[in-house]
């Protein structure tokens, strides 16, 4: 193994800076006392955060994001955990490979295509411009992350426990709840977090199928960016980033120091 050269270390620091530094630019702007987005800021104030927490459309979009995110995460976690367990039990073969490929589809389809397709299809059954439609869409988009995370969590699971529990007379749902779930709960929780984060940050599908009443936080931000670039957008960006960092920290804590 080669000793790492100073140049390589310096380069890596630069790449990491490139990744993280742009995220910081909105922080001073969000605390600016002025209305123009220039640095250095003329003075500091909390007026844009006050604006965020009093303006009706920012509050309602935050509420929509939370409602959609929590529901989508709950459904995706339920469905995804069951699917992962099913895949874990299934004999490896064409059938389980097909199921896994199908469940990974939301990752591969470009989100604009998924958005347009859902817009056309949901319009036929009256699901566009409804929170239920948005929850369904985000459930599908988040599902693959739950399946993959829980499948990874099941890798160390000893299947003989299943036979042991069944031979002692435990019905399937009890085996699942008392034997399997306690052992894979960190993976399930990590999957749920990722599902929530996926929904909370999702913009493209919401752009197509949400009406103004269902605007989520990213959708409201985009509307703001397109009409008038006010520092409230920076405040919203900071709050969204803090939420992401919180979710990331929880996710890291759940999956342990493996850095998975």
């Amino acid at each position: 193994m080669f000793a790492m050269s100073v140049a390589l270390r310096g380069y890596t620091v630069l790449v990491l800076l490139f990744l993280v530094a742009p995220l910081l630019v909105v922080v001073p702007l969000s605390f600016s006392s002025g209305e123009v987005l220039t640095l250095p800021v003329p003075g500091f104030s909390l007026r844009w955060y006050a604006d965020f927490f009093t303006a009706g459309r920012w509050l309602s979009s935050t509420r929509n994001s939370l409602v959609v995110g929590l529901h989508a995460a709950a459904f995706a976690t339920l469905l995804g955990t069951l699917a992962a367990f099913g895949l874990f039990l299934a004999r490896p073969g064409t059938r389980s490979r097909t199921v896994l490929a199908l469940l990974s589809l939301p990752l591969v389809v470009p989100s604009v295509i998924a958005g347009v397709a859902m817009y056309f299809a949901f319009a036929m059954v009256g699901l566009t411009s409804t929170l239920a439609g948005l929850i369904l869409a985000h459930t599908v988009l988040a599902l693959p992350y739950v399946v993959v995370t829980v499948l990874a969590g099941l890798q160390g699971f000893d299947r003989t426990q299943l036979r042991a529990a069944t031979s002692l007379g435990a019905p399937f749902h009890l085996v699942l709840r008392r034997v399997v779930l306690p052992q894979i709960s960190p993976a399930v929780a990590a999957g749920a977090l990722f599902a929530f984060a996926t929904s909370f940050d999702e913009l493209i599908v919401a752009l197509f199928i949400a009406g103004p009443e269902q605007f989520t936080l990213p959708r409201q931000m985009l509307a703001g960016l397109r009409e008038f670039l006010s520092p409230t957008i920076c405040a919203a960006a900071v709050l969204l980033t803090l939420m992401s960092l919180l979710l990331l920290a929880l996710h890291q804590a759940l999956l342990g120091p493996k850095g998975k």
Partner: protein
Amino acid sequence: MMPAVLVVVLALVVPLLVSAATAVRDPELRAALPRTAALLRAWDGHGLPEEATFAALAGELRAAEAEQALGALSRRLNFERSGMRGLLLRAARAELVAPYSMALPALDPRWGAPATWALLRRAALGVTPLYLLRAVDLDIAADGAVVMQPAEEAVFGRLFLRSLVIALQVTLLALLVAYPAAYAIARLSPGWARLATVLVLVPFWVSILVRTTAWFILLQREGPLNAALLALGVTDHPLQLIFTRFAVLVAMVHVLLPFAILPMVGVMKRIDPRLARAAASLGATRWQHFRRVYLPLSLPGVGAGGLIVFMLAIGFYITPALVGGNTDQMVSAFIADYTTTTLNWGMAGALALLLLAMTAAVVALALLLVPRLRPRGIGAPP
């Protein structure tokens, strides 16, 4: 696993099929003028139809106009041949008397032209290749033959090429920037490696829109980047950074870089460091070791990262839309525009179908040509 499969099928697979069907569906004429459509379908298509068809058209046009139900149809026909909207609306509003096969051509000579009626007959069939043809810069001529679009109308070939070029540029840049950094992260001591990985994960978890917003502000004419360049004396006047291809590439590489770094780190961590000593003891130079041992072993990570970055980049919408100029927009922007602004769902469906096909083709080609690149567990969260 069946409930999950059912939800994916109902909420994604079925919509994708609906979207594909939208690309070839042609419902407008049948919906607005059902009797005329039936007569047109029964007609053999030679010359002009019979008086009954003229009469049905005149009557139904008038009735539909009274109910303001001609919007979708006139949009559809005008899309195929400009001028059809006016032709249709004038006929709908005129006071006509039988025989209509005389009255309509008297109103406008185009009603006496077989090409007009051939066009109406094609629109009455319920399915049309028109949108898919237009999406590949072809057109249906007056006689029904498939012809090339004139050069100034042939926009979609250039659009797909541009999207492909931007996606490939972003992929290449991301891989080049990521490779040395991934190499370094894979070699750091566990504590530092964890810190570096978390720093890579931070932007990965932060919403793409938030990251694009950051670039949108950074690259403004009076923005922080220009201010820094002016202060450093690199330039004496603010540069046009935003709404350029440069802005699109920088912002997209920033958004997609974690997807390139993380799979590479994963693969590079599994490369046995003793191989370097083995290579050195056999007389290999550092360059030979890199080229003959390390690079081939790290290629699966490069392949996985490259594929993910490319697949995400080719469908990018929000970043080019916000920081790019008019000539930096990708296919997705046109799909969104046709869906929500111009309400031409046929074109939106056709472009979406082609984009999906192109994405699948490039990925399949990459997997086929370079079996070593074949990724395992693609799309797994890092």
